[in-house]
């Protein structure tokens, strides 16, 4: 197998006025023809730097300080600018995370595609055009010729990503580098893109360097994986080996921190990795992970460089750990312990939502004439119970946030009821709610960057609600701030910090503390962990779990991540196009019978499992929320659509106790295919050593 890309002891440093900083440290790997290597690691560990180095395109200030990078045997550092131009886009091509910003907004995509062959030897415009169209068809874009005329902003996110992939494949490169190509895409679209990459790979035999922070997606595309930590590769090997028997404590930690579809309920805690990564870790002489590692020994791990050693030469399983023996001998890697979901349908209902609808009126830019309305939420019925978690899942744009904002009063409903303590709040904006009601519903937001006001200290963020919602005097408030910080496991000195001095996870903890400050009855959390790394996410989820148990809080948790929902939820509502298509106790929703949409979601969810079955790709995308829907909202994409019925008649609600499914299909347990993990397939536990 010919070598396509080789990193040989590559170190890359960033020079700034503050001094030199190691970004990559002694990274070595080889990708052969037709091979796919997945590179995983948490944010900032240097994944993108690896990708850019492979293109010989480093950000200003970064330079290769050691080692060599070869593409098809040629040392990139020795190529002239001309030679580089010839290789780039021709022998190596790259796909980036954000397709929108990777495409020139003012040039039709056809032109941008045609540039690739035209830059690399093709002289005939017609021929270039034909090749571009062919490639668009190859990535399964409909009406490829018409697509050529479009501007990037006229395509959906999934379509844009396909265009970017098509552009990379145009020259049939030997090496395709994909840097987080599916982050930011919906699960169903992501699944489709990943399937596409797999197919194309099989067809063109291209070597692939696939970068992701998500172990699940890597498992879908690659056969080998490399785990990067603080600029160092800590473990590589085949997917099967690494997932089944990870060796490096960091790899083990990552896998352990991940909630699984197959895993248990939150009452079995996730296992976050202790501590956080520090900037200084990159500069360590020894193991960068040592400060967080329970196996670390001073002499072995910190005082001398740790090298990669082969554990299983045949499987090319390499690990950078000085204490392999101790680690392997020590505790086994464990997923969260399974525990039954004990949904308590007797728990008192604190908040109920009845027949709730919300329309956004669209006005043209200059006011006046209406351009229709977005039906963001239509006829939703839900209950949140004390001490229980109600999870809401669904694809982007299905109305989850809108629902959350109506409950919290940041938006007012068009019709329907939101009842808290017997009072209907649906039409009352939070600004007009009585203080006590306001106190009872609090919210945790998604984005750790915008959840705290960057201009004010942590103490401010926690004091204000105490003063306003609980009327505490400033002295009392001070003490209470410390108590809240302790409750979310933050040291008291954090109080005086500014938000930018905190990590994302810490900020999210402050946000949780802030929501708790007023002793709320209901906390609405809109994607509270989706922007966080796995390990941090695990810690936050554990914290939420604990808080739930301590108090009789009703948690409304919004997420697009089914595994997370599986882990956290007592009750689940699956939303599609503003409607709840399936609702019920978590156990029942995650086991057959399913709504076809729920089923598709379960199948699309990427799982870090080498044996996961191929996904069923949903065709098309959600209809526009401005369209008028006569029948079932899912009809246009449903693989089991009954023509003439589903698209004309609203579906009936089928009830199985507390479990409701809104579907025309006669649903029975037999017909429903079990999803990947929930079906009780061999999971990691059973196969780990």
């Amino acid at each position: 197998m010919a070598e396509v890309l080789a990193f040989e002891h590559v170190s890359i440093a960033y020079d700034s006025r503050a001094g030199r900083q190691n970004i990559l440290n002694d990274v070595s790997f080889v990708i052969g023809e037709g091979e796919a290597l997945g590179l995983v690691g948490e944010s900032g560990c240097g994944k993108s730097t690896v990708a850019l180095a492979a293109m010989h395109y480093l950000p200003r200030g970064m330079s290769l300080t050691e080692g060599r990078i070869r593409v098809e045997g040629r040392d990139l550092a020795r190529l002239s600018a001309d030679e580089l131009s010839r290789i780039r886009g021709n022998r190596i091509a790259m796909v980036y995370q954000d397709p929108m910003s990777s495409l020139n907004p003012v040039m039709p995509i056809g032109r941008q595609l045609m540039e690739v062959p035209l830059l690399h030897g093709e002289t005939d415009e017609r021929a270039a055009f034909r090749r571009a169209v062919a490639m668009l068809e190859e990535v399964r874009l409909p009406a490829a010729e018409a697509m050529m005329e479009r501007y990037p902003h006229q395509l959906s996110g999934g379509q844009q990503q396909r265009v970017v992939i098509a552009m990379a494949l145009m020259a049939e490169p030997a090496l395709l580098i994909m840097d987080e190509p599916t982050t930011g895409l919906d699960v169903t679209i992501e699944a489709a893109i990943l399937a596409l990459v797999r197919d194309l790979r099989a067809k063109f035999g291209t070597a692939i360097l696939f970068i992701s922070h998500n172990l699940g997606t890597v498992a879908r595309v690659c056969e080998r994986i490399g785990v990067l930590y603080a600029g160092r590769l800590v473990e590589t090997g085949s997917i099967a080996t690494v997932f089944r028997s990870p060796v490096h404590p960091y790899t083990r930690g990552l896998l352990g921190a991940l909630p699984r579809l197959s895993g248990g309920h939150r009452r079995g805690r996730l296992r976050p990795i202790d501590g956080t990564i520090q900037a200084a870790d990159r500069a360590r002489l020894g193991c960068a992970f040592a400060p967080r590692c329970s196996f670390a020994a001073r002499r072995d791990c910190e005082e001398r460089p740790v090298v990669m050693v082969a554990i299983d030469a045949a499987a090319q399983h390499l690990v950078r750990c000085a204490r392999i023996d101790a680690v392997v001998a020590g505790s086994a890697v464990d997923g969260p312990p399974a525990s039954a979901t004990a949904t308590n349908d007797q728990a008192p209902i604190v908040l109920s939502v009845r027949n709730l609808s919300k329309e956004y009126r669209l006005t043209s830019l200059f006011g006046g004439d209406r351009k229709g309305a977005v039906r963001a939420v239509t006829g939703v019925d839900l209950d949140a119970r004390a001490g229980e978690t109600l999870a809401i899942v669904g694809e982007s744009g299905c109305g989850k946030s809108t629902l959350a904002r109506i409950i919290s009063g940041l938006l007012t409903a068009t019709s329907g009821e939101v009842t808290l303590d017997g009072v209907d709040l649906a039409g009352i904006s939070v600004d007009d709610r009585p203080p006590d009601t306001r106190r009872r519903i609090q919210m945790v937001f998604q984005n750790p960057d915008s959840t705290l006001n960057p201009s004010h200290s942590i103490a401010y963020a926690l004091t204000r609600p105490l003063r306003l919602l609980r009327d505490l005097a400033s002295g009392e408030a001070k003490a209470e701030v410390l108590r809240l910080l302790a409750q979310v496991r933050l040291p008291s000195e954090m109080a005086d910090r500014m938000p930018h001095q905190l990590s994302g996870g810490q900020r999210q903890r402050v946000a949780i503390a802030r929501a708790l400050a007023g002793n709320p009855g209901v906390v609405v959390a809109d994607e509270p962990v989706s922007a966080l790394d796995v390990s941090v996410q695990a810690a936050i989820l554990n914290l939420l779990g604990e808080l739930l148990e301590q108090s009789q809080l009703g948690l409304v948790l919004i997420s697009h991540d089914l595994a997370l929902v599986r882990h956290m939820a007592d009750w689940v509502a699956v939303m599609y196009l503003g409607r709840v298509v399936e609702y019920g106790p978590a156990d029942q929703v995650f086991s057959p019978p399913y709504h076809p949409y729920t089923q598709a979601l379960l199948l699309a969810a990427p799982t870090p499992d080498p044996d996961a079955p191929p996904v069923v790709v949903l065709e098309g995308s959600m209809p526009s929320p401005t369209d008028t829907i006569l029948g079932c909202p899912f009809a246009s994409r449903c693989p089991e659509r009954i023509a003439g019925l589903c698209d004309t008649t609203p579906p009936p609600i089928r009830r199985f106790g507390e479990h409701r499914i809104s579907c025309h299909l006669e649903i029975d347990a037999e017909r429903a295919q079990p999803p990947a993990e929930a079906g009780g397939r061999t999971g990691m536990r059973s196969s780990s050593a």
Partner: protein
Amino acid sequence: MTEISHDLAASRLASASLVGAEAADAGPLGKVYSVVTRSPLATVGATILLTWCLLALLAPWVAPYPPNQIDVALVADPHPSAQHWLGVDHLGRDILSRLIWGARTVLTVAPIAVLGAVMLGIFLGLLSGYRGGMIDVVIMRVGDTLLAFPKIILYLIIIAKFGASAFNIIAVITLSSAPIIARIVRGVTLDIKNRDYVAAARMRGESAFFIMFVEILPNARGPLIVDFFLRLGYTTIAIGVLGFLGVGLPPPDPDWGGMVKEAYGMIFVWPHMTIIPSLAISSLVIGANFLATGLREAALDG
């Protein structure tokens, strides 16, 4: 005066960057200090501005002569000499002293005018952006009408009507700049009001004014500070231009633009009388520009 377009650009640049992108380590001053020292451009700019501020502050002690002291005997040979380092003007007044005292005028009128504009602009922009609806429409409409006047024309008609005085200059600059600042602030407000921390503030029942001034405003300070210094520069030019056109600050107290105006008929023989105050104006503008550019770059670099 390209101010209209300067303003437009400033607002574009400002809104393109730095919204909430920063916060203080050691209080706002420490932050400014650290940003300023990080960028060489900003350091140069700040040094120039500080020097002038110091000179202005210490004018009574550092200026070698009273600024209006006339000595007609010197008019025959006004060139720089040991007694008068920068020479004297056509009335025999010491140019160095006039420059130093003139710095006081410039450094009060320009910043007050800009501050006035900033304050009015902030208030209207916050109100417009946060409240939206009719208030927004009315404020923006009135602002647009004011902006439709080319600035110099607005200055001219108002000053022709009410006469030239420091107060009128301040008023007219405030009036013509406030709508643009209001636009910047409104843009930032529209962005920030949808941030989660504003939602959080609403959920704990903060009043609208508190949200506008405590939650939103501090996060707009990045663009506003950059804008302040850019505007300070162009206001200095504007005051100079008004002085030059003969509708500036009234004599005898020194005003740099007026100094140029008074002496430029003599540029052919006594160029120092014109060039020195011109350089003073330019240096102040350059200082403000450098500081603004440096701050912006530093903020963009994070």
